């Protein structure tokens, strides 16, 4: 049974002419990291809102495990946890109390809650700050604390809304490491992001959303592989007399899958006067062309100094699907 299942889910807010979420369907397997990628206003947060009982679906079904979220929100809440984009930590009580009271709301016995709080505070590097109130925390620390709090009742599915938006690079890497650890332990993670790098780094599968619709859904690799002609192979070639002969360029262009060849003109030709670079645009997997190009160059007496593979990013996938950039 999937950990999260959504079918024909629709949300239309009152007074809105369009559906915020417009009939989407997908399933997330237990232990999977699932990313919803899309620009602001794509319907990601509304989708998460419906799955986490805070937004009432207009039609369709959203389920956590076997529980229909709209029909039995109370039970669904015991299976899920939410890490929102902005801190909603309880400011009246210490960090440690934030954890233990959260556990108490979910019926975790006090002794067990205390043990888990110690463990999580240590794991999230905040053991010595447990008695501090959340007011004094930085954005990164709040984010860490909200993840720790969410884990106090051992949720089956953890929802994270833009988990690293607004974090500095170090805090972002810390959060990513913690999320990878959770995946290793089998927690199902569902995250929204408008950061394609985050989606590609963390998610097993990515759903690309825009205007409330799910445009594509696959592993990041498959999504990027699907973009024909946007892989590139860049060759650094040792040219005897400082130039690449035209027949060589033509021969490269006749290799299988090569769509276009472009000789690159270095901005700094003095750096190494005899090295020339050429870029091949490839349909499919560019790495398959490394061996044939090396052979071709060697046959004609050119030395290959280096290769550089360029793969399309999720951003390219998004532009391809929607005709516009993520931001």
């Amino acid at each position, binding site marked *: *049974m999937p*950990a999260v299942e959504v079918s024909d889910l629709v949300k239309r*807010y009152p007074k809105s002419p369009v559906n915020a979420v417009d009939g989407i369907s997908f399933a997330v397997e*237990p*232990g999977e990291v699932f990313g919803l990628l899309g620009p602001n206003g794509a319907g990601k947060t*509304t989708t998460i*809102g419906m799955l*986490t*009982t*805070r*937004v*009432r679906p207009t039609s369709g079904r959203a389920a956590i*495990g*076997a*529980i229909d979220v709209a029909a*039995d*929100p*109370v*039970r669904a*809440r*015991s*299976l*899920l*946890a*939410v890490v*929102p984009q*902005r801190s*909603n*930590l*309880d*400011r*009246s*009580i210490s960090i440690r*109390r934030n954890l233990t*009271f*959260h556990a*108490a*709301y*979910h*019926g975790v016995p006090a002794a067990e809650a205390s043990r*888990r709080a110690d*463990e*999580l505070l*240590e*794991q999230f590097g905040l053991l010595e700050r447990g008695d501090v109130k959340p007011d004094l925390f930085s954005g990164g620390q709040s984010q860490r604390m909200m993840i720790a*709090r969410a*884990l106090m009742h*051992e949720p*089956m599915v953890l929802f994270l809304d833009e988990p690293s938006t607004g974090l500095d690079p170090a805090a972002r890497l810390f959060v990513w490491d913690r999320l990878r650890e*959770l995946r290793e*332990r*089998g*927690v*199902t993670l569902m995250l929204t992001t408008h950061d394609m790098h985050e989606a590609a780094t963390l998610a097993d599968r990515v759903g690309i959303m825009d205007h409330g619709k799910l445009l594509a859904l696959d592993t990041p690799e498959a999504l990027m592989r699907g973009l024909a002609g946007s892989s590139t192979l860049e060759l650094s070639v040792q040219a005897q007399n400082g130039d690449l002969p035209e027949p060589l360029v033509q021969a490269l262009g006749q290799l299988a899958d090569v769509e276009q060849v472009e000789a690159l003109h270095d901005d700094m030709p003095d750096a190494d006067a005899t090295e020339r670079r050429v870029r091949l645009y490839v349909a499919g997997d560019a790495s398959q062309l490394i061996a044939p190009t090396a052979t071709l160059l060697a046959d004609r007496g050119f030395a290959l100094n280096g290769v550089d593979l360029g793969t399309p990013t999720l951003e390219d996938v998004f532009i391809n699907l929607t005709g516009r950039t993520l931001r």
Partner: protein
Amino acid sequence: MSATFVSKPSPGPARAPVPHASQARAFTAVLRRDLYVTGKELPVFLAQVILQPLFLLFVFGKVLGSLGYTQHGYSDLLFPGLLALTAVITGMQTLAFPLVVEFGWTKEIEDRLLAPMSTALVAAEKVLFAAMRAMTATTIMIPVGILVLGSIPWRWSGFPLLVVALVLGSLLGAGLGLVMGTLVVPQRINIVFSLVFTPLLFTGCSQYPWPSLSRLPWFQVVTACNPMTYVSEAMRAALVPEVPHIAPWVCIVVLVGSVSALMAVGVRGFYRRAID
């Protein structure tokens, strides 16, 4: 670093309704959180709830009386009115202001809205907690009254009615707070509070008995519209029955009706804020 407890991802297809016990556990845990915070901020809580009635009591009951501007016995009819005022205002303040902030700004309430309990129970906990604070504050006013006035009107035969008025007055305040807290957006809170608070304070018959207003009929009508009036009148019926007052059964009927109406509106507002 080797936490092992997050390792049971599949609780299986559980279809039975959530046991009431676990909802009750969540409810008491949320209430315990509120009591814990109040306990930690006890001096602030006491100052917040006692200061206003204390000064009203001191100036109107003691100072004006000592200077001869009020008749002898005025403090006896003022004191029950101030009990009513404390109950209603404390209940309202406890709920309204924090609710506006939690829903509109800090979003702190989200952790409780995602606890395994129905949304109505989250609202019910807020009401219960506000009523508890209101009753505590009002009870504290009794020794404060003895301290300031030297003696307070007291009759044990009126005690049951006093308790009924106390409970209904506290719930009335909580109901007003729930309605305001869910209807008002944070940007408007200051305006709404001053527009509601001051009229409520002075038209609730806490400083004068309602029947005596027959000399000022228009104001008598205005005060009859303020449900706090019926708390004040019931308190007077309990403690100083010799002062003309509205019949206790009328007060109770009006208060039960007002509390029910406010709860119905407030819980609807709470749902609207909690679930899109």
